[in-house]
């Protein structure tokens, strides 16, 4: 039972942190609950489908279907996070100024919410399919201890959801005027970590073949399979044995998103703009 609890908790952890951050990021945006719940639901449904078709996906595309699927899904999440960050940099201030005037903010918020919902769906999809496969394995293996394992799995699931709540409440404790800056940085690192994971799957598929050597091995200090290692893996993309290509992609993603967020940030002060819009 404890084993099942740990395995399921471990898988939910990653998706839970991502969902918690995105809940904090979209705080105050109308209808965000619907979008995020929709993302979770889509992810769960997708995870079920993914589990059913695991073998077909594996065998597709000359046997590297699974790798390409993972790489593609992660790449989509990176693009969505980047887009969200850049969009928020452009419109975040005016949105904050308008937050109480529901009409405009709702319309504007929804655009970014679509990206957020996709990232949530992708995170739940990836981790969820592992859980579905694991629990499915338990239910058909015919052991007498199955019910205990399932209970363990469910407790693990609940604990994982607790992580989402902790992340969310931890972040919303930050004063609103700093929250935006903190989440921008968080999301950028999140995206860079996902990009590095994506390229790892491309390497596994034999598509990205340059710089495959391991750059360092810090598994003796902090294994990325340990709990803290996994949290850091999700938050900042920590890997205890990264390849050169992973590091390059990680750095490039960081620079690109930070650069674009900065370059596309409106240079005029926010207040006059808000006043102009109100007078229109």
């Amino acid at each position, binding site marked *: 039972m404890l084993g099942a609890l740990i395995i399921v908790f471990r898988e939910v952890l990653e998706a839970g942190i991502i969902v918690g951050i995105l809940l904090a990021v979209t705080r105050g945006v109308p209808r965000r609950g619907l979008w995020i719940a929709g993302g979770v639901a889509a992810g769960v449904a997708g995870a079920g489908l993914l589990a059913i078709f695991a073998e077909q996906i*594996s065998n597709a*595309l*000359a046997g590297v279907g699974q790798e*390409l699927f993972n790489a*593609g899904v992660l790449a989509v999440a990176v693009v969505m996070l980047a887009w969200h960050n850049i969009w928020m940099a452009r419109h975040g201030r005016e949105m904050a100024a308008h937050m109480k005037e529901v009409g405009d903010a709702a*319309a504007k918020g929804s655009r970014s919410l679509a990206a957020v919902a996709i990232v949530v769906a992708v995170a739940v999809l990836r981790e969820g399919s592992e859980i579905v496969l694991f629990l499915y394995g338990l239910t058909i293996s015919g052991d007498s201890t199955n019910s205990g394992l399932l209970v363990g799995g469910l407790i693990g699931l609940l604990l994982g959801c607790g992580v989402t709540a902790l992340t969310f409440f931890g972040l919303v404790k930050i004063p609103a005027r700093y929250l935006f800056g903190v989440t921008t940085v968080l999301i950028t690192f999140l995206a860079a970590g996902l990009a590095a994971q994506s390229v790892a799957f491309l390497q596994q*598929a*034999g598509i990205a073949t340059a710089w495959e050597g391991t750059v360092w091995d810090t*598994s003796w200090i902090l294994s990325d399979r340990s709990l803290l290692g996994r949290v850091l893996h999700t938050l900042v993309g920590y890997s205890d044995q990264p390849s050169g290509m992973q590091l390059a992609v990680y750095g490039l993603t960081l620079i690109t998103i930070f650069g674009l967020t900065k370059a596309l940030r409106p240079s005029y002060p926010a207040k006059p703009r808000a006043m102009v819009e109100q007078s229109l």
Partner: protein
Amino acid sequence: MKASASKGFVIGFGAAAIGLFALVASIAGIAPAAAEDAAVVRLAIKDHRFQPAEARAPAGKPITIEIRNLDPTPAEFESKTMRVEKVVAGGGAITVQIRPLPAGRYRFFDDYHEDTTEGFLVVQ
């Protein structure tokens, strides 16, 4: 009108997602099958154990590992040092391509049953 604008965005995202995946898939189409001179290692999973639990492969050559899952339950073939992570359906089989490795002892396991499934690839 606002609703249709946000709908347009959702459709745009969907298209972007599909486009990205198509791009990745097309790269796969171009990628050469590098398995020509690869050493082949065959493994089976039965009762959540690897058979054989220790396999051998030459150093400095690409390695193809074929894993057949004889259990009805799914497994995830994983190795940190070989940098592999791949699901094998119950009763299914997968192939993984490993980059040329320096000599050493590489651990692999089933991520769903790490306590019982452990195996090593001895590269020399």
